[in-house]
């Protein structure tokens, strides 16, 4: 791709990601509605898709309010940070054989780095709000992200070992002989759970936990800044689904259809799976989440690492 094309493509990816996130707000509610024996937003436009525009309009025109007791500049910066880092994460996603903004040899690390930065957004938002519920949400999120970050990264090392590269395009290419969700099912399992924890969605939405902390870290947020937090959450959901597709389900690989379509279908199904999880599972308690992480997830990841390492050595080491 020429430089001009890359810039255009980058803009397209950005627009596509934000647009998908917006549509996802509507799609998620419809899907939840179907599973919960109700309609969801179905009035405006075909199947209620106009709801997206209506919601946008409402959120954009709301009073842009900064509480007088908040730390103003940090309060404003926090929600923007999550959107920026999530959008940056899309830079390394391989949508097709040559369809990516950039293919760097540390693509996977770049993705991990960007998503870990998102914790700052939550923490800064919580602390700058100067609100007790937000503080409790921030505390939870710090603990949760720090522990789940550890094995989120470790769970992907198996994939890297089998491929021998951090480049996402190489990882996709390496799956021509078999998608990694078979050989790396433990890695996938841990990564999915860590990913939900990272994107703090139900059942791991403890930093928010509406029933306990009213709205947790974003209690004081409204209007546009609240929208940015939500946008960040949905971008995170899409990004993580893209990554699961790339890392475990062969990325754009697939017969007959164009690669980008395959990529889209796989990502879409994974997003639906995340929404189903949200509909089905109750929220564990904070200390239960921690012990799940350190006592079950971490050992599982380590076992996966050791076994994969041994297999990789046996296969390629000789």
């Amino acid at each position, binding site marked *: 791709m020429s430089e001009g094309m890359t810039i255009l493509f980058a803009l397209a990816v950005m627009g596509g990601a934000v647009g998908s996130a917006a549509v996802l707000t509507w799609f998620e509610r419809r899907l939840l509605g179907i599973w919960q024996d109700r309609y969801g937003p179905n009035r405006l436009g075909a199947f209620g898709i106009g709801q997206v525009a209506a919601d946008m309009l409402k959120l954009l025109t709301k009073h842009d309010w900064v509480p007088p007791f908040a730390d103003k500049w940090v309060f404003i910066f926090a929600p923007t940070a999550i959107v920026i880092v999530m959008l940056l994460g899309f830079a390394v996603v391989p949508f097709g054989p040559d369809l990516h903004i950039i293919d760097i040899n540390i693509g996977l690390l770049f993705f991990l780095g960007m998503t870990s930065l998102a914790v700052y957004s939550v923490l800064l938002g919580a602390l700058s709000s100067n609100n007790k519920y937000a503080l*409790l949400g921030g505390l939870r999120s710090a603990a949760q992200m720090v522990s789940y970050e550890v094995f989120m990264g470790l769970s992907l090392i198996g994939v890297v070992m089998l491929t021998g590269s951090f480049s996402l395009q190489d990882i996709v290419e390496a799956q021509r002989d078999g998608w990694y969700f078979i050989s790396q099912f433990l890695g996938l399992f841990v990564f999915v759970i860590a990913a939900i924890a990272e994107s703090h969605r139900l059942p791991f939405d403890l930093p928010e*936990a509406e029933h306990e902390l009213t709205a947790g870290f974003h209690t004081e947020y409204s209007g546009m800044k609240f929208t940015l937090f939500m946008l960040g959450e949905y971008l995170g959901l899409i990004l993580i689904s893209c990554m699961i597709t790339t890392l475990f389900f062969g990325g754009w690989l697939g017969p007959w259809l164009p690669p980008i379509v395959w990529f889209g279908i796989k990502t879409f199904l994974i997003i639906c799976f995340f929404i189903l999880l949200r*509909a089905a599972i*109750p*929220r*564990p308690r*904070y*200390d239960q989440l921690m012990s799940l992480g350190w006592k079950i997830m971490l050992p599982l990841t380590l076992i996966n690492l050791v076994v994969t390492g041994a297999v990789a050595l046996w296969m390629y080491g000789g």
Partner: protein
Amino acid sequence: MLVVEQTTDNTVLAELFEKFGEDSFVVQKSSDGIPTLWLQANKLHEVLRFLKPEYSMLYDLFGIDERLRTNRQGQPDSDFTVVYHLLSLSSNADIRLKLATPESNPEVPTITDVWKNANWYEREAWDMLGIKFTNHPNLYRILLPPTWEGHALRKDHPARATELEPFSLNEAKQAEEQEALRFRPEEWGMQTSKDGTEYMFLNLGPNHPSVHGVFRIALQLDGEVVVDAVPDIGYHHRGAEKMGERQSWPSYMPYTDRIDYLGGVMNNLPYCLSVEKLAGIEVPERAKVIRIMLAELFRISSHLVFYGTFVQDIGQMSPVFYMFADRERLFGIIEAITGGRMHPAWFRIGGVAQDLPNGWEKLVKEFIDSMPARLDHYDKMAMQNSLIKSRTVGIGKYSAEEAIEWGVTGPNLRATGVDWDLRKQRPYAGYDQFEFEVPIAQNGDSYDRAVVRVEEIRQSLRIVRQCLDNMPEGPYKSDHKLTSPPPKESTMEDIETLIHHFLHTSWGPVIPAGEACIPIEATKGLNSYHLISDGSTTSYRTRIRTPSFPHLQQIPLISRGLMIPDLIAIIASIDFVMADVDR
């Protein structure tokens, strides 16, 4: 199950007379047959301690402003009376003790040292009637705001806004009111710091998604661990008891609907039973069965809301929609029968408002046929979910003794293994005609409180099916002259009946003087209306004893040392609505 006959003989009186001497007491005649004794304040503690091993539950404690009451034959002089209503689970009996105080110095000793749950009741009596309880640990207002002037249930306190100056809220007053609501830990004997670290004090509510209404719990937190909690109620207080003193007997019915607003006509029942007891009205068989059927349908409805919100508060998103969909179908049936949905106000003194509509059998049958399979489905989804179990098993535990000490009744009591259901113990309103079991559980934790309620839904379905199969023929309302609306058939034939009809529909019936209180097993526990008639068209005193009031009082006891999410699980498992607490 062991059903103890309700004791109406007066062996307890004989024992009391023997122990304390007959001249220590004045016996009062009551319409409901509950032994009612007046005694002196200096004997109060001794008598209560003597009674406590047998009469283990302080069922209710309230005050009466007697200053305008005319029909007090045989009762000692009193301006403000304090009533202690005790309940014995072992011998299935009640006893009522009364203490007279003069207007000049309405003061009685506190009994918080005998029963812990007397604390809130005494605060309420202080708040409402200005009766002082000596040595009470924190005798603050409980239902009305701290800035309130006067005591609302005194007869000289205005009952309507139109009797007061127009209300206005300027900035200074707003600031003052807000300041008065600030939580002050030192008032409750709490430390603000320990070993150099400060505790966080968090107002959970009055506006919070999980407190089921307007309810504040001031939490003393160490990280997320609840060190102590102070529940603060009164935000939903609408003066239902005061309204009882100005509405005519039948026109108070819609107000009862709104006490436990999930219980619908279940609230009408204890009111009707008490009025009917005072008036001596016998309810026809068909009316009895209709009442039981509607009451049980509302028990199902209320428990479905509990079930849904219980799992929702633990963070499971979907089940609540299924339960609310079932509740909608139930409301469809209730609407077809009564014309109302949540608040039908459909029971009448002496019966119900109309006969059942044509085709009601089909609606009810469809519903009760479909429910068991759906409940099994919910079981798999919610009650057998391991995450739900890990969040609720062993959380918010109390023993049977603690439950009784704190006045806990209903499913919350049965979750501790106490087999006590008034529908079995005192088959009021015709429950002796029905076959059903009383579900109990053993551990008294949040999970078991849910288990009991889920099983109660199944038992209620069983009762409704028996109503459906055996609905008797006959009138749906008694033809007693004090029923409402009064019989109209011969009003156009003789002038006497026309006059009575006119007076009863305009002023309302005059219910004979007396006192009656008939507790029932409502959706959330024991509910009763202690009604005092002074021989007039309105009640002289309407005392509403609701189950949720004592249930909230023991929240601190069971939540200390747990975390905020546990507290939310406890609140969800108690099953209360604030209207049922504040009245």
